[in-house]
């Protein structure tokens, strides 16, 4: 595989769990074992949109049991003889190699994956700030020589960028350090909140300055959070901000 591979540095490695769970987009070359009319290929790709069953391939990093994965979109880009180029948007953990095999079975001719390029991983896109190893090495060295901070910003994103697809909750300064110590988020700490949050959804908790504080699981919906004046609204899963950045404004129980 080539293409989008987000790499988290130092403290930012804590956001990896959010990236691993986020959707992916790939461009794939599939090789058919015999030629099939383009119309049939299109129809079969359509059939695989939605929720599919998939058993991970023999060489897989997870247990090989049948599981469901969501295919958000699956579209034909080009055919050339037995080669089929398609673009797929899919849930994390979808095996494109297996998808090709299964498409081949459905088409009746058999098929295998020939080449794969990831064009999206969560918020990170192929055509937005994608850098090569060579770029990284060059710009980092240049930054060390010149101390020009602009160079760092050319190839490194703040970790907050990785959380862009998650619904966000913005909180008061006074609630920040309690969360950094592992406390759960209570209703009075909430200043603003994004729409569409349902119980059990993964959410990101932010300061008003746009700094990520923690990853959490919502306990109630957006509507309920807006109505609540006490009680817990989100359970902290992973603290992202170091302790002590904001002042301690809470009292330990006596």
């Amino acid at each position, binding site marked *: 595989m*080539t293409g989008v591979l987000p790499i988290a*540095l130092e403290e930012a490695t804590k956001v990896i769990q959010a990236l691993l769970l986020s*959707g992916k987009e790939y461009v794939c070359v599939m090789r058919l074992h015999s030629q099939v009319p383009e119309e049939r290929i299109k129809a079969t790709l359509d059939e695989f949109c939605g929720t599919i069953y998939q058993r991970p391939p023999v060489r897989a990093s997870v247990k090989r049991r049948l599981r469901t994965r969501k295919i958000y979109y699956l579209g034909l880009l080009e055919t050339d003889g037995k080669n089929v180029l398609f673009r797929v948007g899919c849930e994390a953990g979808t095996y494109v190699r297996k998808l090709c095999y299964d498409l081949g079975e459905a088409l009746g001719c058999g098929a295998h994956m020939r080449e794969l390029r990831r064009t999206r991983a969560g918020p990170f896109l192929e055509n937005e700030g994608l850098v090569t190893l060579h770029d990284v090495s060059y710009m980092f060295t240049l930054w060390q020589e010149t101390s020009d901070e602009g160079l760092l910003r050319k190839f490194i994103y703040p970790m907050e960028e990785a959380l862009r697809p998650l619904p966000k909750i913005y909180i008061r300064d006074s609630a920040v350090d309690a969360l950094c110590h592992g406390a759960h988020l209570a209703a009075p700490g909430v200043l603003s909140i994004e729409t569409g949050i349902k119980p059990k959804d993964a959410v990101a908790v932010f300061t008003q300055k746009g700094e990520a504080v923690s990853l959490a699981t919502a306990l109630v919906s957006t509507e309920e959070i807006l109505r609540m004046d006490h009680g817990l609204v989100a359970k902290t899963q992973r603290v992202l901000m170091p302790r002590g950045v904001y002042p301690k404004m809470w009292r330990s129980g006596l």
Partner: protein
Amino acid sequence: MMPRTKAPWEIERRLVVKAEEETDPRFGQKPNERPPQDYIRFGVINLDKPAGPSSHEVTAWVKRLLSLEHAGHGGTLEA
């Protein structure tokens, strides 16, 4: 045909205000204003993985290149 599921990046969200309060400029800072060492420590690279080496190997190279203690990748292990 099955109903199409929206990709997470296709979901549009609005921000709703519950309460107003100013943030104290003495604490924290906007992510883009972090000093260079912190900017790196809390940073993510959108890397174009070359064909051949594994994601794990490429991550190890970046770690060495930038003299880091920790680095991790956020792709799936193998597609």
